[in-house]
């Protein structure tokens, strides 16, 4: 097992990784930028090294700085977390070349799945269903995009070939819209990913985003740990996730699970990953992409399966074989995760600043993952995700109820957060009935209604 693991990340996921390392008896080395010198992950780790200034490019995204910390301070493993360099093939390769274990798949898996048109081609050949879309390597010119759209029929979704996270994505419903949107999407892709290559996919109006968790060892033993429904997205940013998918049946889970495992098998995948599908109303499902890292919402899968995904991924990375068999994976109850963002619920602009009071909810089935503490200053430089409230209960209705109670108990004073939005979602009758698709959040005007109950402060 590893002796010292460097966490190439910050915030909530850094805390998560430190906790897993503690259970495994692995020493932890945190890295931080100057903006994070008072961050919780810095305090919790056994050792901490400042690697650069506040801006991410020169710190958390700087492969040379991080590799220097790895080698100078003697780490034998690196965990990339999510975001930052977690899906950067060069980083995975730099680690391996330096003789350091990277907790994740191989660089070639990251690169392959990062090329979306290529991933689609591989899946098609493997018999995993994909949406009708651009063929070959994608399109860079508007006229080629238009030709594809003619063939597919509107509506279509323009996507970045090298992309993710909603950047470079546009829904278009007519040729006129396509002509306007294509150059914009392409420019966004170039800015975000350094690539002008795009591709088109047929757009399904009322589909659910259903993803399957994959776990694999270094010997191609692969299992799935069930699905998560992540349909609740705002501009392709996930807001709330749950497991199981409210409309899933055991038969469909078996079918989709097999397809997810097949997707991982066909590329010889190792470690953790997530296969994303779109699930249409009629029960048809289509491969969208594969994420080659641990995800923000991994916690909901942990709650319903009882399996510690971060510990498993570290153990797999250290060469341990997968002990779990597919038939052993059982799903118990229902889990919901609310992503708490530091943002003004009215304007949706980020709301950085000092958290003057912090009290996280607790109790049976209530799990909070956060790096917040009393007096912590949320920095401006990074992602506004500041906490995850993950709730588990016997069934979905109980989980919704428990989540509402937990959010009402959650006190984050001094900054604005997205908690009012979550409460509105949880109160929505369609949400309660499980009737929603990826369009669900469009119905909400962003207003700050129903403020959470304030706790009386101890005098």
């Amino acid at each position: 097992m590893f002796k010292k693991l460097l966490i190439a990340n910050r915030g909530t996921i850094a805390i998560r990784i430190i906790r897993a390392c503690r259970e495994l008896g692995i020493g932890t080395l945190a890295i931080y930028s100057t903006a994070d010198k008072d961050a919780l992950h810095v305090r919790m780790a056994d050792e901490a090294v400042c690697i650069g200034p506040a801006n991410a490019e020169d710190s958390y995204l700087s492969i040379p700085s991080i590799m220097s910390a790895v080698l100078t301070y003697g780490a034998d493993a690196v965990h990339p977390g999510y975001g930052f360099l977690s899906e950067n093939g060069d980083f995975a390769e730099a680690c391996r070349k330096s003789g350091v274990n990277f907790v994740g798949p191989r660089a070639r898996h990251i690169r392959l799945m990062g090329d979306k048109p290529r991933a689609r081609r591989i899946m098609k050949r493997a018999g995993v269903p994909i949406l009708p879309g651009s063929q070959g390597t994608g399109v860079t010119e508007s006229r080629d995009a238009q030709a594809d759209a003619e063939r597919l029929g509107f509506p279509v979704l323009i996507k970045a070939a090298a992309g993710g996270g909603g950047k470079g994505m546009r829904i278009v419903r007519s040729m006129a819209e396509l002509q306007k949107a294509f150059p914009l999407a392409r420019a966004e892709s170039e800015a975000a990913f350094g690539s002008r290559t795009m591709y088109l996919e047929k757009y399904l109006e009322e589909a659910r985003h259903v993803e399957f968790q994959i776990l694999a060892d270094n010997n191609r033993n692969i299992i799935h740990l069930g699905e998560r429904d992540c349909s609740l997205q705002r501009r392709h940013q996930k807001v709330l996730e749950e497991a199981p998918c409210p409309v899933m049946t055991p038969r469909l889970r078996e079918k989709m699970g097999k397809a997810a495992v097949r997707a991982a098998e066909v590329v010889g995948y190792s470690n953790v990953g997530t296969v994303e599908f779109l699930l249409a109303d009629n029960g048809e499902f289509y491969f969208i992409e594969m994420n080659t890292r641990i995800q923000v919402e991994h916690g909901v899968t942990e709650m319903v399966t009882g399996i510690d995904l971060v510990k498993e991924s570290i153990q797999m990375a250290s060469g341990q074989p997968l002990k779990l068999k597919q038939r052993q994976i059982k799903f118990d109850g229902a889990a919901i995760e609310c992503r708490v963002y530091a943002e003004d619920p009215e304007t949706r602009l980020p709301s950085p600043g000092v958290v003057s009071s912090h009290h996280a909810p607790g109790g049976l089935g209530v799990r909070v993952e956060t790096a917040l503490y009393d007096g912590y200053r949320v920095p401006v430089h990074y992602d506004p995700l500041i906490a995850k409230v993950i709730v588990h209960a016997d069934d979905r209705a109980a989980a919704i109820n428990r989540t509402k109670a937990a959010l009402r108990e959650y006190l984050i004073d001094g900054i604005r957060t997205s908690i009012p939005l979550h409460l509105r979602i949880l109160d929505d009758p369609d949400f309660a009935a499980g009737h929603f698709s990826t369009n669900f959040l469009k119905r909400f005007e962003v207003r700050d209604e129903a403020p959470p109950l304030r706790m009386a402060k101890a005098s």
Partner: protein
Amino acid sequence: MEVREIKALLALMQEYALVELEIDDKKKGKVRLVRAHDGGDAIAASAASIAPAAASARKASVRQAASAPASTIEAAKNAAPALSDNQRLVTSPMVGTFYRAASPDAAPFVDEGDSVRKGQPLCIIEAMKMMNEIEAESAGRVVKVLCENAQPVEYGQPLLILELG
């Protein structure tokens, strides 16, 4: 260092209204204790977990100041020293290993007391087998070298004190 010993030190700090206390013991390692600004009970302690090259014989440095830093826990690193007006800290622009000379058998670039020209190399920070020379930003005199040869350093870590002019 035992918790018992640390508690005794904390009591000492309270008694003498100290804000910061650093002890560098050859056997027990380095401990730095920093009290919170409002003089409250919150005290942060750090023990040497990243050990620089052999700690020197026991030495203690003590600071009583009006404005104390907020409680922080950090691994043993050299505390930022107090500077006079015409002195400047040379800090590391990257994480890596600090070397005083270009190679193990070469003479150090500078010694304490040396005068330096603008642009003159002062030391090397090695990162991933690449040697990065750190140059003096202006002419001056080397007052103090703060790091030991082959010591791991982080971004922003104080390396030397230069007196300008």
